[in-house]
């Protein structure tokens, strides 16, 4: 296909806009769920200013808890993402500080800090109490800044040859080895990896540390670079105020504290600062550990039961789900069904009391072998119920993430076909980003839900939120997968825009409710008030256009617990009564 000038223009704009669109634009580097305005700043007008606001200049430059903007909530504090250069500067600042306070060489200061786990206070305490002991422990008892030279030839303990004086070198401890052997030893230590910043003199039992200054004069350039990388890596691994971004091939580091639940990296990865895994709100780190362990143990059973393909409930053709939405249409027989429950899609609607009633586990579901319906089987069923939905959202999240490039192509094609501006087609990208986020959160709601006791009001409220988010997410997924022809219509576009916003509202409601301890007892009128019928996100909403969706958004906000203290108290009192 020939490339028309308009495409080239498009791709140019794409590059220009790329970094400013989506989540990053609204929040700068800080990621927060408490952004009340909830407006997606598509144009990214403010992003420049916001980034500057967070520019970090800590005079102390330490690993001590980093001063951050006052936390808006325990769920998502501010978190500063820095690159290797800024990290190196932070580490050097700390070393220089110790170096000048204790009047020692920076390399000796680094060895001290490393020994005392980069804790400035313990270094100063120990050094002032007993400098010799501190130096001995850190392996800098006989530290010198430069290599020692010998006045006479000796036997090198490594190659076991007699070596002339000029070829011999030693650390401050005076154990001489030939330069070549010493270098080879250091290179081999760096090749070993992580432990290389703690390399000691080659002499048996000598505690003297080979500090950075010696690496600098002895090893080749590439090895030195590797040494410095390991040195930096161990610094981050030890300091609790830092966390490497777990994104694949990402070298950014987050600065924050362990109360942070979600931290957005510049590479787009959203991760939990506390455990370093993908951000898993609303599930806790502890839940995640037990869940992952459980999934590992159960994986064979689960895989056996949950094969990747399923049979069409009508014609039994094998179907592999390769699209994001759970609304399936069999190519063979055109039968429409729900991927989760395999029931006909027509039953998923207002007439069954909910468009998407597939998120609740009903313990009373009769099993095939009722007589051996032992506890173990029931437990496995329960687990599978949650695992299946967890896995389903996980795959949908991966799918949506992979879609990013395809979406950009779609956006360009849409621009070409009807001459829209780049900004006019952003809605597709924004919707997809919201989908990825919702899929991720939904995935972890099944971990959270699995550990939430059955039959409690809290669980009912949680499942209510989960169901809302799920049905809007599914519908948004379905909406944004429509053909480009559809998106030529203005009302189709605004429908996607509106659904993106509504879905976001439901997402916030869910997270807020979990954060508040699921204490909202307004659930009664939510469950019976029949608003689910009103906000039904089916094709009906599509037909009705934007007005209907706006109403749904209004409903979404209504479930948001009031923020004022009186309201909270009233809620708490009511919930107390409800339990009694």
């Amino acid at each position, binding site marked *: 296909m020939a490339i028309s000038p308009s495409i080239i223009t498009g791709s140019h704009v794409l590059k220009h806009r790329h970094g400013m669109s989506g989540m990053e634009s609204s929040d700068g580097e800080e990621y927060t769920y408490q952004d009340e305005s909830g407006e997606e700043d598509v144009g990214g007008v403010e992003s420049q200013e916001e980034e500057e606001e967070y520019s970090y200049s800590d005079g102390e430059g330490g690993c001590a808890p980093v001063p951050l903007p006052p936390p808006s909530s325990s769920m998502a504090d501010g978190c500063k993402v820095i690159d290797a250069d800024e990290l190196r500067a932070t580490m050097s600042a700390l070393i220089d500080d110790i170096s000048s306070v204790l009047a020692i060489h920076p390399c000796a200061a680094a060895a001290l800090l490393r020994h005392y786990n980069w804790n400035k206070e313990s270094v100063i305490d120990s050094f002032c109490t007993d400098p010799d002991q501190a130096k001995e422990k850190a392996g800098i008892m006989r530290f010198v800044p430069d290599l020692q030279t010998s006045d006479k030839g000796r036997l090198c303990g490594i190659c*076991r*040859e007699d070596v002339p004086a000029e070829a011999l070198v030693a650390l401050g401890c005076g154990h001489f*080895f030939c330069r*070549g052997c010493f270098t080879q030893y250091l290179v081999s230590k760096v090749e070993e990896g992580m432990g290389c910043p703690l390399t000691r003199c080659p002499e048996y039992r000598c505690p003297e540390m080979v500090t950075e200054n010696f690496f600098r004069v002895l090893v080749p350039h590439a090895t030195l670079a590797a040494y410095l990388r390991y040195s930096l890596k161990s610094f981050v691994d030890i300091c609790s105020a830092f966390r490497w971004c777990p994104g694949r091939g990402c070298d950014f580091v987050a600065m924050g504290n362990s109360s942070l639940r979600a931290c957005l990296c510049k590479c787009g990865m959203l991760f939990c600062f506390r455990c370093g895994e993908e951000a898993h709100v609303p599930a806790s780190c502890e839940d995640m550990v037990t869940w992952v362990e459980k999934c590992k143990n159960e994986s064979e059973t689960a895989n056996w039961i949950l094969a990747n393909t399923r049979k069409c409930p009508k014609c039994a053709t094998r179907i592999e789900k390769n699209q994001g939405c759970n609304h399936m249409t069999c190519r063979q027989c055109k039968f429409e069904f729900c991927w989760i429950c395999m029931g006909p899609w027509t039953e998923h609607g207002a007439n069954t009391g909910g468009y998407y009633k597939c998120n609740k586990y009903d313990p009373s579901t009769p099993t095939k072998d009722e007589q051996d319906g032992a506890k173990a089987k029931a437990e496995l069923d329960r687990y599978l119920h949650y695992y299946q939905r967890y896995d389903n959202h996980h795959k949908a999240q991966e799918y949506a993430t992979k879609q990013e490039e395809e979406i950009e192509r779609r956006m360009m094609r849409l621009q070409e076909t009807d001459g829209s501006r780049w900004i006019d087609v952003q809605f597709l990208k924004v919707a997809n980003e919201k989908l990825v986020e919702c899929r991720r959160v939904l995935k972890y709601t099944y971990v959270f839900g699995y550990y939430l006791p059955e039959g409690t009001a809290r669980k009912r409220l949680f499942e209510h939120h989960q169901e809302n988010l799920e049905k809007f997410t599914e519908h948004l997924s379905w909406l944004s997968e429509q053909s480009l022809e559809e998106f030529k219509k203005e009302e189709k576009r605004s429908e996607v825009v509106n659904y993106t916003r509504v879905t976001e509202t439901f997402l916030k409601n869910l997270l807020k409710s979990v954060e508040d301890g699921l204490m909202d007892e307004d659930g009664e009128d939510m469950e019976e008030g029949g608003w689910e019928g009103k906000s039904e996100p089916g094709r009906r909403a599509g037909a009705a256009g934007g007005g209907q969706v706006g109403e749904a958004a209004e409903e979404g906000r209504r479930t948001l617990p009031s923020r004022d203290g009186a309201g909270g108290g009233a809620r708490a009192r009511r919930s107390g009564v409800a339990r009694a």
Partner: protein
Amino acid sequence: MQKHLGKEFRRGNANFRVQKELREWLANPTENLQVAVGDNIRVWVVTLTGAKGTIFAGEKYKLKFTFPMDYPSKPPSVYFLQPPPRHEHVYTNGDICLNLLGRDWRPNMTASMLALSILSMLSSAREKKIPQDNHVHADNPPGKEQANWLYHDDRC
């Protein structure tokens, strides 16, 4: 054995240092430690005889030494061939729990120092018993790098 001693190796090559050690060992023979080398100069089998007056007196065990390419920056792999002695720091798969074989190895140490350390470890034992955590380790193949080992009493 002689063919290994006759060859010329370049300095910096692991074989250079191994050959030197082999020469030194043969020049200073020890009654309790006999070395044998096959086709590969970097694989030694050392026959260890329990020292007089100890619980292993007169018993013969074989130690296998394998020198890596980056010897002596890295330690040799050393383990007992079957059957190994019953000792609280010797696993039934032949592995020896010794800090000098891992964390505390330094390049100016030699194979003969290691062999002597192992002999003295056997000599100081009061009773023949296998390591407490033997069941955890016994099924592993012996001679792997002791990179992340925790030594029971900081040395063995």
